């Protein structure tokens, strides 16, 4: 059998006929499912364990029903869904070779990501003032760990988007770089689907 070297349009060597980078990103996202699967499982097991080992706080043990502000979290969900739309529009614009429009959508996505993070910081501060510290109970520990890990992923995504915005300002950036935008888009959408699961299982389903 002849040894055939395959190359993607970007000049990347491949033996599978697929983009190596894209294959790696999908593999990474698959492994991320395991990470969040473990965190969500832990939260689901401990969500009812609201009584801590220390003295009971003056306002009583913090429970999901007392802490959650569903309208506020729904607004955060809307912001993240909106950011997924702007991200996919950035990818589509880049694939069409419309770099200025793509850059605008990338910047909008980063700003929406910042809005989501600001909302999460506000929520965490509010919970802490209501007596729900990280070590208050198993419920609060698993809640902060799960939503905190998600928040860190959003923050990493914002850093990548801002980097992409800066790099795409260079003259040599053309439609051949569309895959770079698409790959960051895949990561961003993954962060969105994790939030879809968290929003339903953590916030909407009562313990």
């Amino acid at each position, binding site marked *: 059998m*002849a*040894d*055939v*070297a*395959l*190359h*993607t*349009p970007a000049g990347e060597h*491949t033996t*599978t*006929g*697929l*983009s190596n980078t*894209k*294959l790696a990103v*999908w*593999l990474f*996202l*698959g*492994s*991320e*499912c*395991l990470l*969040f*699967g*473990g965190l*969500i*499982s*832990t939260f689901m*097991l401990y969500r009812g364990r609201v009584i801590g080992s220390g003295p009971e706080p003056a306002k009583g043990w913090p429970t999901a029903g007392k802490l959650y502000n*569903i*309208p506020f979290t*729904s607004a955060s*969900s*809307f912001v993240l*869904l*909106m950011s*997924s*739309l702007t*991200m*996919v*529009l950035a*990818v*589509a*614009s880049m694939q*069409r070779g419309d770099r200025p429009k793509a850059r605008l959508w990338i910047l909008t996505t980063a700003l929406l990501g910042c809005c989501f993070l600001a909302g999460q910081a506000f929520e965490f501060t509010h919970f802490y003032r209501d007596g729900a510290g990280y070590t208050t109970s198993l419920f609060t520990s698993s809640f902060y760990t799960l939503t905190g890990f998600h928040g860190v992923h959003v923050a990493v995504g914002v850093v990548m988007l801002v980097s992409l915005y800066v790099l795409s300002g260079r003259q040599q950036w053309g439609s051949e770089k*569309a895959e770079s935008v*698409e790959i960051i*888009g*895949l990561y961003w*959408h*993954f962060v*969105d*689907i994790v939030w*879809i*699961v968290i*929003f*339903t299982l953590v916030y*909407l*389903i009562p313990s």
Partner: protein
Amino acid sequence: MDADTAEAIEPASYTDAPGGHGETGHSDMVYVKVFVLLVVLTAFEVALSYSHIGRAFIPILAVVMVLKFGIVVSYFMHLRYERTSAFGRLFMTGLFLAIVVYIAMLTTFRVWSS
């Protein structure tokens, strides 16, 4: 590796679709429609959480959650337009293992614990 036989290949990413609307072959309006659908489904979930419909509550929420998950993966992550199923298989393997982890943990703590 024989360099003479090297060939550039088409990206095995999307189906060949006409229209000049990007590689997925449809306009931005499709994404906007998908977004509106996601917002409607989220609003439905929130409205459901304020109603008291009894035992059907969790199954309905779970179905809507899976539906939203599938829509984002299919349309925004372009999995339905991929020419190859390799990407989807990699992702679904991770997702399947994550569900196995959840079931394993649940049975460990709720069934097998004394």
